[in-house]
């Protein structure tokens, strides 16, 4: 059992975060070096973990927290999925954020909390039991707040308050569920197939109640309708924050938590026999359709993307709530796919806003002529969201739809089709406008050879390439799909 690598992975953003606070505002070069070094190191550590894991090395770091209660960081295939996602996207977002915030005030505070935010995400990925998960989940809530209100305008403060109210209240419901689990079952740790089997023999009703508490607590961050109210408001944050928030950090933490609760706390079979999966699937379906419909009517690009997040996240929850291997694969793989697609979209929206001050859909007219690369990246990611083969989103939707059919729940296919049509309805018009319409007035010329700063341009291109790669190379063992397949094989004993 390897102890240090999980700790190092966590420290690679924690230590830079603390150092950045101590460094002070004016040392911008040292801050950049710290940020990039941390991000690169984290990717390196994750690669080492992946390689070691392939060889069968176990990674676990454990330390006593309270009597009989340990803090546990552990690597298993599901955490690997989320870990790889966070590490990769942190690196790209760091590059993006350095470019995006060049010369703006309060960068020390921003990058300090940014690093702590990623630390929390990595902690959530590695958490081996509920208490560790909760610790980092709350740390994420707190460290994201200064990022949401970073602009310090009245609007961002209002958004920050809404965000805190929702997430802290959610955290409290979650804590109640966790305390109740511990009261019934003692200190339990995540394990594939679930760990509550014994308790279920005597406390079925309590377990249903706990499930509801946990899902509501996690559902706030996962933006399940009607707990999603904070997410569209919180998009007033700077673009790199929105990108991280909608792809890996906050919302994904909620979805990932639900995945953990269903697979590794209850176990699919127990959850199925308790009858809690169908309501969860229905809730997810409602969220998928509702989010898409709301996205249709939003004219502000970032708000449209935010509602799209509400909808897309619930694909993960839907996949989790269907008791069949193909759907499980679809849910797990979407955990990664949604992240890379949505971060690309937010990067591009940030580029439009930062370079040309374009914030609304109707202003995108002809932007493809002025910013072809950003628009191309946006197009790839949006097509992915719609589920166009061979992009990442197609793989998710294919598995989810097929999974529904496999388990005799054909309405899932209906939800997929409806949602894809709606996706097309809110993504195709802006794309068509960007490529095929003439701009209403001539764009201001690019500052140099590139359409915008390279630090802003490279990240969306890289993540767009990931969207393509995740689809085309889905058959590779270490692709998101390959990993998801491995997890599912183990879970269903295939």
């Amino acid at each position, binding site marked *: 059992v390897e102890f240090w690598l999980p700790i190092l992975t966590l420290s690679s953003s924690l230590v830079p975060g603390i150092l950045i606070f101590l460094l002070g505002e004016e040392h911008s070069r040292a801050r950049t070096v710290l940020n990039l070094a941390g991000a690169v190191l984290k990717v390196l550590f994750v690669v080492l973990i992946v390689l070691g894991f392939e060889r069968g090395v176990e990674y676990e770091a454990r330390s006593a927290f309270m009597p009989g209660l340990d803090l546990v960081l552990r690597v298993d295939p599901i955490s690997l999925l989320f870990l790889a996602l966070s590490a990769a996207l942190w690196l790209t977002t760091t590059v993006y954020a350095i470019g995006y915030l060049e010369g703006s005030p309060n960068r020390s505070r921003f990058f300090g909390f940014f690093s702590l935010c990623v630390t929390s995400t990595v902690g959530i990925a590695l958490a081996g039991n509920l208490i560790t998960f909760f610790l980092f989940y709350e*740390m994420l809530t707190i460290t994201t707040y200064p990022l949401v209100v970073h602009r310090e305008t009245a609007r961002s*403060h209002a958004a920050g308050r809404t965000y805190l109210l929702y997430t802290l209240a959610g955290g409290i419901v979650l804590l109640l569920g966790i305390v109740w689990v511990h009261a019934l079952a003692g200190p339990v740790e995540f394990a594939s197939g679930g760990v509550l089997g014994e308790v279920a023999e005597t406390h079925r009703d309590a377990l249903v109640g706990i499930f509801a508490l946990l899902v509501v607590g996690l559902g706030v961050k996962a933006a399940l309708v009607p707990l999603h109210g904070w997410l569209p408001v919180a998009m007033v944050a700077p673009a790199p924050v929105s990108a991280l928030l909608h792809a890996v950090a906050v919302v994904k933490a909620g979805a990932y938590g639900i995945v953990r609760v269903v697979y590794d706390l209850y176990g699919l079979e127990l959850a199925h026999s308790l009858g809690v999966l169908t309501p969860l699937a229905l809730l997810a379906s409602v969220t998928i359709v509702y989010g898409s419909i709301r996205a249709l009517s939003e004219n502000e690009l970032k708000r449209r993307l935010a509602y799209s997040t509400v909808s897309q996240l619930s694909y993960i929850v839907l996949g989790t709530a269907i008791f069949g291997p193909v759907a499980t694969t679809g849910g797990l793989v979407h955990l990664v796919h949604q992240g890379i697609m949505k971060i690309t979209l937010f990067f591009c929206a940030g580029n439009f806003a930062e370079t040309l001050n374009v914030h609304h859909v109707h202003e995108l007219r002809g932007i493809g002529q002025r910013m072809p690369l950003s628009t191309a990246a946006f197009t790839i990611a949006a097509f992915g969201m719609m589920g166009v083969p061979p992009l990442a989103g197609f793989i998710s939707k294919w598995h989810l739809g097929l999974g529904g059919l496999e388990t005799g729940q054909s309405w899932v296919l209906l939800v997929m089709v409806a949602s894809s049509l709606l996706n097309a309805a809110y993504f195709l018009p802006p794309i068509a406008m960007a490529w095929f319409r003439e701009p209403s007035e001539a764009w201001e010329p690019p500052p140099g050879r590139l359409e915008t700063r390279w630090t802003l341009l490279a990240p969306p291109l890289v993540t767009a390439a990931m969207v393509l790669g995740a689809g085309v190379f889905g058959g590779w063992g270490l692709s998101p799909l390959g990993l998801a397949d491995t997890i599912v094989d183990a879970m269903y004993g295939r």
Partner: protein
Amino acid sequence: VTATVPWIVLVPLLGACVAVGFRRLGPALGVASGVAVLAAAAALTRQVFVEGVVRHAVGGWGAPLGIELRADGVGASMVLMTALTAPAITVYAIAYYRDPGGAAKGWRPGPAFWPLWLFLQAALYAVFLSADVFNLYVALEVLTLSAVGLIVLSPELRALSAAMRYLLAAFLGSLGYLFGVALLYAAFGTLDIALLGERLTPGAPAAAALALVTLGLMLKTALFPLHFWLPDAHGNAPAPASAILSALVIKASFYMIVRLWVEVFPAVVSFPAGQMAGGLGALAILWGSLQAIRQHRLKLLVAYSTVSQVGYLFLLLPLAAVPVGGADAAGHAWQRDAWAGGLYHGLSHAFAKASMFMAAGTVMHVLGHDRMEDLLGLARRLPVTVFAFGLSGLTIIGVPPSGGFVAKWLLLRAAVESGQWWWVIVILAGGLLSAGYLFIVLGQALTPPLALTAEPAGPMPAHHTMEWASMALALLALLLGLRAVEALALIEVGTPIAAGPGP
């Protein structure tokens, strides 16, 4: 090694006497006593860990004639808490009184602070180490009088009237306690806590004594609705005094209540009595936080936060200090959870609240006021202070991995396992409400001011000491969350809560 125990009380006592005579030595005596007591407290803690409960008869005279000192895990942890908080406050006070800026500019409090502060420390240690109910009374009186003195050292008139109200309330409280003790002595013929516990039989004298002692001490701890004196007293005292009062002084009377309930009165406390005490605690949590949200002055907000946090302490009584299920003498595992949780809350709150009052004092020192609406842009001016305030806020809200979270976790578990669900709701709602008032402050501090006010000319070096002193305590509150295993093991030593079956 046993001989270290009396020095914990004697060193600050001697220091205080010298400080009365040689007034200029005050700060030096404060620092020296702080260092010496911290070393002695560390030695005591180690001894309790290794040997178990420590007893020491002062001058060789044992009970029932002489003064006996006794330290179990809880006593030792309270002593250590005080010994860790006191040096930070001392350092802060040195900087604070060297240059009492802001509204108090030109005000010279005189060196009276130092003897009072040292007397107060000696009294605190005496409370935590006493083994009989009369010594407890004497120590508590010294504590109250020096606390009132510390409030009066303010140039403001409202501090004076607040101090008078505090004196009156504390005096009434003492009276109640003293009557209770007299009843006990008349009925059972001893003042020693252990002997009283053995001899006490249910009946009218014991029940009346319980009621008098508890009410008197609740008044001193400012439990709702007996908190009326606290916000003014804590909110208007000079900054170091506010920190001392809110963090340490109220813990002394609380400590006495829990010790007496579990060691003297177990024969008469009942389920309804516990529910009543807990119910007041619950009301305190809700009322205190709601009032805190409504405040327009930072120090009053922090003071109302204390009113609310005191409520959590009293949840210990229904969950740990009351026999449940009739004659179930064995007790439950969750009673020990609640016991540790309530006391842990006392420890973490001490660090966090001292840090918050010190931060608020720094704000007042620098800005000359603490009006909430004029705190805009504070984070840019006093980043360390705002950070320390936020960090201690984590303990007050109960966010992991702070000490406050550990306390809440234990209390929550006990409430769920005992089936007393109503406390669960209060604990959780209280967390949300406290987040509410803390983020009002942080939101103001992070918002830039409308117009840039002129920066003060030249740096004021005193602030840095003050800022980092509050930061140190905020970090200690966090450390309590990270080193909970060791701290909880200390509390467990010689615990009076009967060992129960596993969960």
